[in-house]
């Protein structure tokens, strides 16, 4: 359970117990280092590489890694994979983070309202959460992406629409347990408005679990984007994403395995980092653990 920091003496945040615990969590640190390196590479890398991600060199098609200056080889059109990988990283990471922000906002909103209001409103909102959870999210994302014309923004919204339920559940449970606490009753006695109590008084106390869930949602969103783009309904070429780089890889698996291996390892690295960080945050913020 998170504490109410009102009565604590003000101290610098980096001296706090949570930060110290996070810094001791080896996996979380590995995650932070990996994702920082990956993000820096994606932001700065394309300027440092000798090739543009869209430069087509038909004489250098299917070059294996480490030929000349194609450090990770080239694709079926002779485009430099390293350049595409880093550009793709910008897309995939951005989609993942934006989808996380959207779905966390939506999930937290639904969770707070359902948990605080309870009764009929709360019950129907939570049944809605259950109903969304009954659909396999990949099916839902694919169907929506095929119906609505996919642009990166649309894909982000679709992924957010299918991943807010976890946060909603966590926040609802948290808020329901806080609803009758003294500080909330005091707030009511003071005549604070309902939305003020819900979002300014109760919600901050549920921040720990929300932060953990949000971190894991980034991992989920990156994976979902990779799935739909791999299947051809996500981010559309020529805009590269880690998922659509793998799109044509299967047919060249025997002759050019690096087409599949390079983006796959990158996705796994990115997703693993967020999962590691989420695990570290769970320990640091003392969130009751779910699995494991």
């Amino acid at each position, binding site marked *: 359970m998170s504490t109410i920091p009102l009565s604590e003496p003000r101290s610098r945040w980096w001296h706090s117990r949570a930060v110290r615990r996070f810094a001791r969590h080896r996996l979380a640190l590995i995650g932070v280092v990996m994702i920082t390196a990956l993000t820096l590479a994606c932001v700065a890398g394309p300027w440092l590489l000798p090739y543009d991600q869209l430069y087509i060199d038909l004489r250098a098609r299917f070059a294996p890694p480490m030929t000349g200056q194609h450090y990770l080889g080239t694709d079926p059109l002779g485009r430099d994979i390293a350049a595409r990988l880093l550009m793709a990283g910008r897309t995939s990471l951005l989609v993942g983070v934006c989808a996380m922000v959207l779905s966390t906002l939506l999930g937290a909103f639904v969770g707070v309202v359902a948990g605080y209001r309870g009764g009929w409103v709360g019950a129907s909102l939570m*049944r809605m959460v*259950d*109903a969304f*959870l009954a659909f396999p999210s990949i099916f839902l994302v694919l169907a929506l992406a095929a119906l*609505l014309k996919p642009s990166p923004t649309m894909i982000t919204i679709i992924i957010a629409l299918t991943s807010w339920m976890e946060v909603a559940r966590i926040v609802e449970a948290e808020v329901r347990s806080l609803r009758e606490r003294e500080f909330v009753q005091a707030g009511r006695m003071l005549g604070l408005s309902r939305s003020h109590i819900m979002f300014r008084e109760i919600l901050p106390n549920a921040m720990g679990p929300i932060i953990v869930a949000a971190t894991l949602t980034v991992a989920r969103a990156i994976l979902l984007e990779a799935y739909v783009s*791999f299947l051809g309904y996500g981010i559309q070429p020529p805009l590269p994403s880690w998922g659509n780089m793998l799109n044509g890889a299967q047919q060249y698996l025997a002759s050019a395995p690096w087409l599949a291996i390079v983006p*796959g390892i990158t996705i796994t690295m990115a997703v*693993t980092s967020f999962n590691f960080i989420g695990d570290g945050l769970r320990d640091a913020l003392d969130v009751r653990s779910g*699995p*494991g």
Partner: protein
Amino acid sequence: MLVFLLNRLWQSVILLLIVSIIGFTILNLMPGGPLAQFALDPGMTQADMDRLAEQMGLNRPLPVQYFDWLMRMLQGDWGTSFRDGVPVLDVIGRHLFATLLLMGSSTVIAIAIGTWIGIRGATHRYSMFDYSATVGAMVALSIPTFWFGLVGIYVFSLRLGWVPAGNMYTIGDGSVLNYLHHLILPSIVLSLVNVAVWSRYMRSATLDVINQDFVKTARAKGLTERRVLMKHVVGNALLPMITLAGMQLPSILGGALVTETVFTWPGMGRLFLDSLGYSDYPVVMGILMFSAFLTVLGNLIADVVIAMVDPRIRLG
């Protein structure tokens, strides 16, 4: 028990109703609505379209249309496939076996390996094994299933040639062995995520049980450690796993879709993707609704089974 059953059944019905409302909303989101197939015909005029819309009742208010659609679904009329004019339920039925076979075998693998890892992790807590299992599970959850499938195909069928790279059976050879040979790699690929999830839950469930009084009593009675584990710990730790199995259904179905695509496995997931490619919306909708129904049903069964095994829940 009867009250519990009826209560649970009632909740599932409500849930299915909400699921159907979501499904209906998506159906009406699609460009051209249910008339999409006719809009493709260049000979259709706006007047024809309007007449069709009136014939099909599409000019009525949405709630009326919804109830009509729901009633027809309940009577088993899920529409017909645009592609070959076959009723949607028949199309799904034709592909169901392959998917259930894949899901079933991968679940068996996941439970077997996951249970073993989980229990060993709990009994050897903070050992090297436990630590690698924890890290391994987190990495396994981060690997995209389709990519794991591609790597599997590359290593085990293209390089080593141990297993076929796809399909459910060799044409002209319908033997069980042939099916099994094709089944091995896709089921292992599909089970990866579930081994991770299952072993994590099994570990914490075992830790919950392992220090309780009845286990200490069993030890005090002088039972061997193995017997205590098998009979008293595992039995009780497996109970909550029944609920987990129900909850995992949608993710296994989603994983099956991706696995089937990579392995050209003729199941529901492939059907879903093919239908998307052909804009065969009735089948897409049908599979979407069907998988949600399957999940609700799975959770209901899990709850009923657990209530039958565990008297505490029935009373609570």
